[in-house]
């Protein structure tokens, strides 16, 4: 990548803009999108930046088209992304599934706003967390990251591209309106090509190439259009040749591999941050904008002498099962503040499995938790 494509330095920018710059740093050169609050700034920045560096920006007729154009571009060998919010995310679901089935590297940013339906277009929520996991039909496994700052909008967009290329799967950046619209210092570093991941590429002659070769690992090498491989890919259940195969055996083999390529690599994929968790009796599990408030509440609790800690989820899908299970034997209670009526808390409950108390602090959206609300819950659970 030419050096002048990336604008390195320190900036005061909002999260959406940082997301666009992160994509450019990651090597993304194709963006297809549709205007939607509060994600529009990602598209606006891309429409300005991509033409400057020889990339393609296209505004499609809707989010369904945007998602498909992203998949098409990825199959032409270009790193591609889209950005949207709730209603658009719903429209993208079917073709996120196509991305999973064709094993297409790409990134989808969802700057979450409050729903259901049109909801509160300009106000924050975290209500799409389970949709991110299960929104498309059929059984699959996906990767989703949650930034808590404009800096992480940049950093995690780079990570999202790397993970999508490594595992050949759409990666979701589950931001929220507060983080997307917040302006803070963002450092854009020089990223060497070594830090960027590119999809595995075929090393065999076209006549020997199998688009979904399952013999040598869980992530098959990916040819792209125009190289002479003359491959076929389909959203139908398919065999290693990419040919439709309508049997339970083919379904079993394919779905197991699609799931296992993520599931068996959870340790590599799943990232989280811990603040004072080691000796904690009460652990707050949170993510995104809510985690910033939880961090303050934990700090205040510590000042009061309460052994509180924060487990901030950076990767939400796949979920940090092992770490929560481990902590469940050591702590009295988990507190889960999230801007919905209880989504990720179900995962915490599943992993805790009754070994400690799990307490949800919900917020229906349109605002964020008060630090005092979380602090009060910490005090109560510490007693």
């Amino acid at each position: 990548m030419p050096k002048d494509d990336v604008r390195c330095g320190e900036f005061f920018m909002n999260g959406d803009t940082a997301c666009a710059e992160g994509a450019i740093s990651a090597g993304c050169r194709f963006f297809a999108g549709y205007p939607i609050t509060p994600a529009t700034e990602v598209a606006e920045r891309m429409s300005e930046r991509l033409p400057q560096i020889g990339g393609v920006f296209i505004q499609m007729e809707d989010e369904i088209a945007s998602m498909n154009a992203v998949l098409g571009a990825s199959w032409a060998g270009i790193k591609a992304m889209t950005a949207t919010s709730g209603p658009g995310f719903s429209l993208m679901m079917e073709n996120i599934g196509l991305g999973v089935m064709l094993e297409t590297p790409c990134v989808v940013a969802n700057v979450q706003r409050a729903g259901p339906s049109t909801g509160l277009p300009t106000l924050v929520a975290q209500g799409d967390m389970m949709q991110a996991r299960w929104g498309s039909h059929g059984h699959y496994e996906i990767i989703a990251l949650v930034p808590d700052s404009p800096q992480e909008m940049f950093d995690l967009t780079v990570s999202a591209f790397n993970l999508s290329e490594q595992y050949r799967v759409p990666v979701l950046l589950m931001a929220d309106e507060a983080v997307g619209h917040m302006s803070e210092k963002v450092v854009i570093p020089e990223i060497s090509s070594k830090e960027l991941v590119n999809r595995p590429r075929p090393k065999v002659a076209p006549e020997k190439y199998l688009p979904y070769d399952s013999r040598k690992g869980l992530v098959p090498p990916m040819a792209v259009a125009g190289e002479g491989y003359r491959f076929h890919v389909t959203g139908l259940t398919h065999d290693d040749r990419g040919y439709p195969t309508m049997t339970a055996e083919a379904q079993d083999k394919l779905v197991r591999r699609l799931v296992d390529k993520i599931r068996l690599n959870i340790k590599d994929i799943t990232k989280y941050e811990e603040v004072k968790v080691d000796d904690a009796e009460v652990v707050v599990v949170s993510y995104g904008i809510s985690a910033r408030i939880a961090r303050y509440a934990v700090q205040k609790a510590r000042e009061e002498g309460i052994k509180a800690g924060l487990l901030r989820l950076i990767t939400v899908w796949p979920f940090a099962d092992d770490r929560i299970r481990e902590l469940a034997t050591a702590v009295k209670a988990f507190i889960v503040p999230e801007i919905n009526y209880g989504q990720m808390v179900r995962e915490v409950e599943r992993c805790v499995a009754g070994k400690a108390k799990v307490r949800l602090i919900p917020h229906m959206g349109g605002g964020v938790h008060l630090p005092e609300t979380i602090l009060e819950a910490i005090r109560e659970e510490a007693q």
Partner: protein
Amino acid sequence: MTKMVTIEANPLDCYLRVDRIPHIWCAGCGIGPATGCFVRAIDRAGLNPDKVSVVSGIGCSGRVAGYIKLDSFHTTHGRALPFATGLKMANPELTVAVFSGDGDIAAIGGNHLIHSARRNIDMTVICINNFNYGMTGGQMGPTTPLDARSTTSPYGNYEYPFNLPYLVAASGATYVARWTVLHLRELERSIAEALTKPGFSFIEVLSPCPTVYGRLNKQPRGLDEMHSYQERSVIRDGADPRDVELSLNGPIVVGKFVDIERPTLWDCYRQVLDRAGKHKKR
């Protein structure tokens, strides 16, 4: 007793996934002949097959991508065009063809059809129109003629159909033609012309569907619909697309209706790259 049959290789086998034959289409269906025209047209146009991609949606016609030995993509219902748009814009050197049925491209994918034509993106769309949803057993769709029977219009279809050439011409397509699978020579020539012409090209191909549409509309054998095409077809190159509406038993106007020049989407985007100041050669 087993009888030995020798099948000689066809010179165009190199364009087909012969290991997937026999195909799934019914006896008397027109998708096979149209696919034959397509591969002969690629050969005729002298295109490098390594640089040609085929994108399909869902339905009987959506299965074409799976039988053609080119880079081929079988996507979701109605979404072949936006997928193809991403493919073409990310690599403008590719020749991109979309094979689609009438329900796929004009109902669930209708929005993408008009916007692709509006943008004049350089691709060729071959729309097999068999007047119904064949794959799911013969339901009415946006091209089913008024009063035609289908499994969801048992008393006759009460909706007006699209006149597809008029729709895409009005939306901005620069090449619009219609043929039936009786007009194989004309169709092959037309596809070759469309594949090499810059801009959005749309070819409607009327095709028998004896298994469902034909059976429900008093044409139960593939040949019945072919005879009907023979009797009803009128070749009128340059006909005004407004005048080529189809009906249950009326005349079928075929021919090349539109062949005009207009900068393609990529031509226009290239100017954006220049204006942005750093046009890199792609």
